[in-house]
């Protein structure tokens, strides 16, 4: 699936605010007021990845894992969190624990969300995390 396809997937669940491109029809920005049934799932999924990025960015040896989560967050239409120095670095054991928890959450969201294309993205994120060296004990 292309990046455009992924964006369409996320847009279809109603989280991407629509912009009125016809200047003659209104003068105020339009916002989405009726989010789709999966809006809360997308919000939670983005928050999960943003939280991981923030914590991992403060740790050493996690560059590849952070890049992985950034790509996954982008696929869900999210923006990476601002870099903060206040995040405490994670130990390797804590990293594995949090990544495992993320895999479980993404599996659950994939299995229970309404939109099939979104489910595929969420399942792919779970699989992508499960593949990472830290999860295989090879990093």
């Amino acid at each position, binding site marked *: 699936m292309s990046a455009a396809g992924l964006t369409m997937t996320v847009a279809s669940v109603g989280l991407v605010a629509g912009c009125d491109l016809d200047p003659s029809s209104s003068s105020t920005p339009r916002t989405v007021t009726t989010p789709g049934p999966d809006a809360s799932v997308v919000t939670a999924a983005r928050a999960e990845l943003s939280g991981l990025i923030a914590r991992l960015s403060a740790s050493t040896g996690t560059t590849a894992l952070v890049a992985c989560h950034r790509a996954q967050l982008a696929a869900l239409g999210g923006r990476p969190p601002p870099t903060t120095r206040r995040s405490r670095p994670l130990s390797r054991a804590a990293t594995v624990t949090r990544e495992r928890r993320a895999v479980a959450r993404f599996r659950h969201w994939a299995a229970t969300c309404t939109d099939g294309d979104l*489910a595929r993205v969420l399942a792919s994120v779970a699989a992508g995390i499960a593949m990472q060296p830290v999860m295989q004990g090879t990093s």
Partner: protein
Amino acid sequence: VTAVQSLQDTLAAEHAAVYVLGVLGGRVATLPSPTLRNAIGTAYDVHLARRDRLEAMITAARATPVPAAPAYALTRPLVTAAQLAAAALRVERACLTAYGALVAASTGPTRRWAVDALVGAAVAELGFGGSAEALPGMDTAATSAR
């Protein structure tokens, strides 16, 4: 694509996987590569179980499971451990793509099972020399092992 059609597509991928992994299992038995032998043996058992599960799900949906082809084309040569691992990796990738499509097309217990299979196939790739990806299984065009 309906859920039943996606189940059929996934079953076709698993038929090919079982065939190819069976051949690879025979070839690897002659090589001094116990790790690869175990990986191929485990993969064969996993794909056999998934094939049977898919046939059961399709039958439960009152459809006739697609049969396996008499034979499937194999990449050549298949002599060295690296060549066998590469062939096994292609099998896992084809199934990974099929399960991605099944996740999108299904709901309920079938989707939950497909999600588990997708994650399993992604991790299995690593045992055959695959690299970790951020978003495995998002390909829209399945690469058939047939």
